[in-house]
């Protein structure tokens, strides 16, 4: 029992320790680190909706992209204050999440999936067409931001961006952790397993799903805002179906319903992409797709399950040896 606690404590501290250490260990590569942090947040947002609540969605990029464009446009047209812009992005995506969620969450399965696909497609196509607003293929460029609190400047060194992203991630993580370990989180798990059963014990299923969907949307929008701020650029890819697919892949690779699964999955995806891009621009899709197939077929719980899975195999082997 004690050993489990120690392992758990290490498991909790480790990711954050690594993240902080990275800042000092790789000052020239902070951009990459910031990308990882952003995608961890993005994947974690999906974990809440898809992993815990079982909402079958491939449209998470809609919120990410909406957050990114809101933050970018806010900085360009309204105010270069990054914190205000971030708040605006979260507010807009939360609202969008509530509105669309209210419309679609009574459906399930393929219908729900298609509705989420339709939403992200509508936004994606609209962004493509509305070149005056979004810059179209060229994207929103040259976003200028004030320093955070007047002190921390966004510049090419990326130090502010990295810590900004990390702090945002940490904040959302604490919230997500409390949610999944609360009675609310438990009821979501029940809804995922058997919505009919939950209704039969008086759970207002639709309202719970709407709540978590909104939170998930706000989180993804926040990730998008950080992305816009960190790179001072928003491209059409933030709303792409491919982006939606990729964050889903990243989450599954790491493992759902662990919150830390997103950490692992996002890191793996970005590392694979970075490495294989040096060999060839699109190789990562092939590799990541293969990893996903292998994960789904072989590892039920994603790569976070690799440890326990290996232990189970070892136990079985030992039991076999003893006979």
């Amino acid at each position, binding site marked *: 029992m004690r050993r489990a606690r120690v392992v758990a404590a290490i498991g909790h501290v480790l990711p954050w320790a690594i993240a902080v250490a990275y800042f000092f260990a790789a000052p020239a590569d902070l951009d990459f680190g910031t990308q990882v942090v952003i995608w961890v947040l993005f994947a974690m947002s999906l974990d809440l909706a898809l992993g815990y609540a079982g909402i079958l969605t491939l449209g998470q990029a809609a919120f990410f992209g909406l957050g990114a464009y809101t933050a970018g446009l806010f900085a360009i047209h309204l105010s270069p204050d990054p914190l205000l812009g971030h708040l605006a992005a979260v507010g807009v995506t939360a609202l969008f999440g509530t509105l669309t969620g209210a419309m679609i969450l009574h459906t399930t399965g393929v219908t729900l999936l298609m509705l989420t696909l339709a939403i992200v497609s509508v936004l994606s196509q609209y962004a493509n067409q509305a070149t005056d607003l979004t810059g179209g293929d060229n994207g929103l460029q040259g976003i200028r931001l004030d320093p955070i609190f007047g002190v921390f400047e966004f510049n090419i060194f990326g130090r502010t961006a990295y810590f900004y992203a990390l702090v945002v991630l940490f904040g959302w993580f604490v919230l997500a952790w409390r949610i999944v370990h609360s009675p609310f989180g438990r009821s979501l798990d029940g809804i995922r397993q058997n919505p009919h059963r939950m*209704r039969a014990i008086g*759970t*207002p299923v639709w309202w719970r799903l709407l709540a978590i969907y909104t939170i998930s949307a706000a989180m993804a929008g926040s990730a998008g805002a950080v992305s816009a701020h960190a790179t001072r650029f928003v491209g059409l890819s933030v709303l792409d179906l491919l982006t939606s697919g990729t964050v889903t892949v990243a989450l599954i690779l790491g493992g759902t319903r662990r919150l830390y699964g997103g950490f692992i999955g996002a890191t793996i995806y970005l590392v694979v992409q970075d490495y294989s891009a040096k060999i060839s621009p699109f190789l990562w899709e092939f590799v990541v797709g293969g990893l996903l197939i292998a994960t789904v077929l072989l590892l039920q719980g994603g790569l976070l399950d690799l440890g326990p899975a290996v232990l189970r195999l070892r136990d079985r082997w030992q039991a076999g040896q003893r006979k």
Partner: protein
Amino acid sequence: MSTAQALSVRGLAKRFGALVVAQEIDLDLAPGARVALIGPNGAGKTTFVNLLTGFLEPDGGRIELSGESLQGLRPEQRVRRGLVRTHQINQLLADNTARDNLAIAIAERDRHAWRLFRFGRQWGRCREEAQQRLEEMETAATADRRVLELPYGEQRLLEIAIALSLRPRVLLLDEPAAGVPSHETEVIHQALDRLPADIAILIIEHHMGVVFRFAREIVVLAQGRVLARGSPAAISADPRVRAVYLGKSPV
């Protein structure tokens, strides 16, 4: 319609295209009632329960719970008013333990389940009550095991325990012993005997032994209509009922 009735149904009707699954169904359940709903397969018994609990919308008729109409209320709202059901096929959270299944239901009942922040103590209380209820059902030994590892009879008992924990005024039991191997059915029947006297209970059942052991009144459903109702003695003597079951003469 009398407010003294725990449950009151008048003229309930439902059709799917040309298929009529419920027609002019009237039913009263007084507090503490023990009524069995019987009828051949396809008579519409489970459909009736679905109509009562709000999983199906009726084409006509009224349903009142202690004098208040249930019209337009969603299933989860009806549960809150005290109309609870069990299912013919278990609807449990298979990955969770037996105790957790109960505790989750209790948390929902006591309105903890929406809380984002305060856990710990209240959840502890839910678990305590869950443990207590399992002991009353005499299945406490399985409290820590996951539902999908439990023998089917234990799962059926859990299904009933969950329904009871919701403090129902009216309890609809859909074939509580269905699918249970014969050596495990007595435990379930004893659990049925111990159900609180003040709850109005409607039990759908095929097994005549259970019906006669448990019911003080029997309602016979056939092809969506009430064919006969009365005391067990009267029903067992009724030639129409025999005919419907054995098909000797057209009804």
